[in-house]
């Protein structure tokens, strides 16, 4: 097993070290920071390399002296110990020289940092909200928004299916931005602290509940750029990827039009009465994307950590208490308030589903209009 995995790796290492810039997917990531696709990301890469080489040179000098000493100044070679133990001149030199080197590093670093923090004059603003465990992207100027959820199938994570190329770094709906445009992101969170980051854009910023952080980017080349949540945010922290698709301005305009049409079409009649079957079918879907991560697909939960819904007092008790928890969450736990995240019909469907799936069989259901009243 191990040997089988290591052989391609060794050959890649050999090939890779000879042809470091080879066009394989491996060389794209591999050993070093990506250069990325923005002016800033390239500046950051250059800074990284500058400091790296300064460290290498200092390291070579210090370790060189040390190694020389280790090989030559040993008792077995008859070395007699000198007894010197201070020199003010030397001490001053090796205090002042590092300070000068540090100043040389600080100047370009400061310049780049000032540029990175200049969020003025953005053409588009997109609000990014972290949720346990998905992202939401709201296009503030165009009045639409959507959730972006991991699309890697469960079977791949559980090793019952082969892993795809973008395992854990693929989503159902990526964030789409135009190239050649200064895009400003407003980053916040709905529950705990997350961090939104894409190495190719040299962006990483914490998403903090109650606070809004700003970053910006200006992507030059169309393409798909991937990252993931980079601040521990609970159980599925490893499963909330970030995928950014940079399109040409024309393609972007087209895409925005489609999204706006989609948003209009999904406006629903608030007074429509749903049948139990309709609610169950929709509820199963909503449950799978929003609830199954903790309460599990079979409603059995994770003992001790996440309560079971199957046969639970709440899911089989009074419907008002049940919908109250789904709508408003439970303080001090990972149970979020879903009133803000889901529509009336989605809430009605998922509550109905939880009350009738897995042998819960309460036989009752709740209508979107009732959810609306309970909000």
């Amino acid at each position, binding site marked *: 097993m191990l040997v089988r995995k290591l052989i391609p790796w060794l050959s890649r290492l050999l090939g890779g070290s000879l042809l470091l810039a080879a066009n394989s997917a491996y060389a794209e990531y591999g050993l070093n920071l990506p250069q990325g696709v923005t002016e800033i990301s390239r500046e950051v890469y250059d800074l990284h390399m500058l400091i790296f080489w300064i460290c290498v040179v200092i390291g070579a000098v210090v370790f060189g002296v040390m190694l020389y000493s280790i090989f030559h100044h040993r008792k077995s070679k008859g070395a007699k110990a000198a*007894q010197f133990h201070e020199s003010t001149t030397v001490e001053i030199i090796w205090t002042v020289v590092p300070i000068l080197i540090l100043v040389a590093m600080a100047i370009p670093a400061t310049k780049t940092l000032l540029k990175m923090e200049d969020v003025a004059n953005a053409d588009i603003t997109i609000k990014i909200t972290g949720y346990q465990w998905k992202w939401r992207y709201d296009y503030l100027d165009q009045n639409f928004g959507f959730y972006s959820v991991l699309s890697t199938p469960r079977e791949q994570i559980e090793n019952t299916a082969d892993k795809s190329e973008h395992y854990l770094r693929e989503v159902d709906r990526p964030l789409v931005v135009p190239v050649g445009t200064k895009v400003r992101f407003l980053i916040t969170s709905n529950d705990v602290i997350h961090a939104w980051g894409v190495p190719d854009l040299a962006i990483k910023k914490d998403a903090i509940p109650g606070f809004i952080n700003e970053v910006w980017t200006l992507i030059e080349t169309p393409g798909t750029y991937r990252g993931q949540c980079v601040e521990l945010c609970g159980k599925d922290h490893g499963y909330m990827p970030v995928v950014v698709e940079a399109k040409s301005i024309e393609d972007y305009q087209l895409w925005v039009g489609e999204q706006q049409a989609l948003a209009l079409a999904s406006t629903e009649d608030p007074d429509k009465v749903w049948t139990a079957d309709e609610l169950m079918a929709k509820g199963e879907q909503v449950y799978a994307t929003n609830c199954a991560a903790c309460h599990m697909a079979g409603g059995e939960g994770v003992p001790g950590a996440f309560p079971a819904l199957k046969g639970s007092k709440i899911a089989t008790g009074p419907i008002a208490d049940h919908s109250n928890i789904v709508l408003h969450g439970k303080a001090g736990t990972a149970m979020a308030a879903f009133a803000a995240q889901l529509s009336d019909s989605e809430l009605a469907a998922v509550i109905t589903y939880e009350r009738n799936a897995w042998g819960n069989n309460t036989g009752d259901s709740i209508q979107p209009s009732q959810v609306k009243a309970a909000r």
Partner: protein
Amino acid sequence: MSTATTHDAHHEHQPSGIMRWLTTTNHKDIGTLYLLFSLLMFFIGGAMAMIIRAELFQPGLQMVNPDFFNQMTTMHALVMIFGAVMPAFVGLANWLVPMMIGAPDMALPRMNNWSFWILPFAFLMLLATLFMPGGAPAGGWTLYPPLSLQTGMAFPFLIFAIHMMGMSSIMGAINVVVTIFNMRAPGMTFMKMPLFVWTWLITAYLLIATMPVLAGSVTMLLTDKFFNTSFFNAAGGGDPVMFQHIFWFFGHPEVYILILPAFGIVSQIIPTFARKPLFGYSSMVYATASIAFLSFIVWGHHMFTVGMPIKGELFYMYATMLIAVPTGVKVFNWVSTMWKGSMTFETPMLFAVAFVFLFTIGGFSGLMLAITPVDFQYQETYFVVAHFHYVLVTGAIFAIMAAVYYWIPKWTGNMYDEKLGKLHFWISCISVNVLFFPQHFLGLAGMPRRIPDYAVQFTEFNMISSIGGFVFGLSQLMFAYIVFKTIRGGAKATDQVWEGAHGLEWTLPSPPPYHSFTTAPEVK
């Protein structure tokens, strides 16, 4: 004969068996307790690391679920920092400070007993959370709210365990300070103190200054969770980022609490085996003090991505870069001490030299992390994991191992097995680099820390890292074997033990008498 009888009577006065250890006020007994406790915690924390590395051997979920994985990363850090490294240093201080300054014992022996015996209970509470419904804390050792507030039943146990560890540390630190100020032998001026004593004196002040801050911040978490306060809840007018500021105001000096005594140890060992006095003694003292001072004003570099104002980012960047200067002075001094020496490479020296090499590598990555715009790329990735394991494992823990090999002949009167010691060193030194060096690449390629599963391009380096981890973990069983073998017997050690050793502790017999110096030695 009469002296023998009084001697026996004196010993009858003392309880034996378990009561001896429970009631002991002797600095050597307490030092031994600390060190053995630390060894136990090192293996418990290590076992957790093995689970982490086993899960990360391949992408996909194989061994544990994500929630348990998070419990392991959280508990691994808490156990290693508060259970393994800190008690090991307090144990070393207990054993060595009185012997090095020519005192009979620590200044506050009863408090000394108390400060040790709090620890087993604190860790019993902490480790018990693993068996509670909902499991152990899983929000990371940094306890960031709001995530840490989602902890279940384990939460109050975690907070009270931290309170108890803090009390223990503060008492230990006060004891060190009082001992050093009041019990130095005549002629032992401050600038004649061995560097281990100096670095511990400064560490003790860091502990006294920061542990109460940690206690305060976790107490605020406790009231946020159970008494509806909103210190860190934006919806109630609080600020989740404020917790991070308070935490890292403790957390960054804590980093130096974990490394300054290691600097002291290495500054004792290198001159001995180079048979040459330490280069730049006074600059070493001043450098340690400068590092300690700077440690209080750089906490913001742990939080560059929280969205600080640009002035804050620049200040923390410059201040952090400055730490490289006194740290560089230390490294240059160690190298100059070796230069033109007459070196031999027994196990303690091997660990000390490896410390200088590998700690410096950790220092370089630290310097890179200080550069704010690039830190945005490194932050919360495996690059950070590699960095702090280089300074904590090949830094702090290598120094502790060097110290054990260096002083165990003095403590027990027996020489350790040099062949096994060297074998232990070489296996550890190679495997630890196989373990942590590839993590630099993983971090640069963008792998976040604290994830149980990863994208496929990270597979190879994770696999290598895990193999290094297993070898490193297993090779520490050798360390335990060598230590217990030495306690049980071995070639008798001389009083001076090492040809080039200087200092008061080497003037005492090996093993030293129960009350180190009953009459104060004269220091010239």
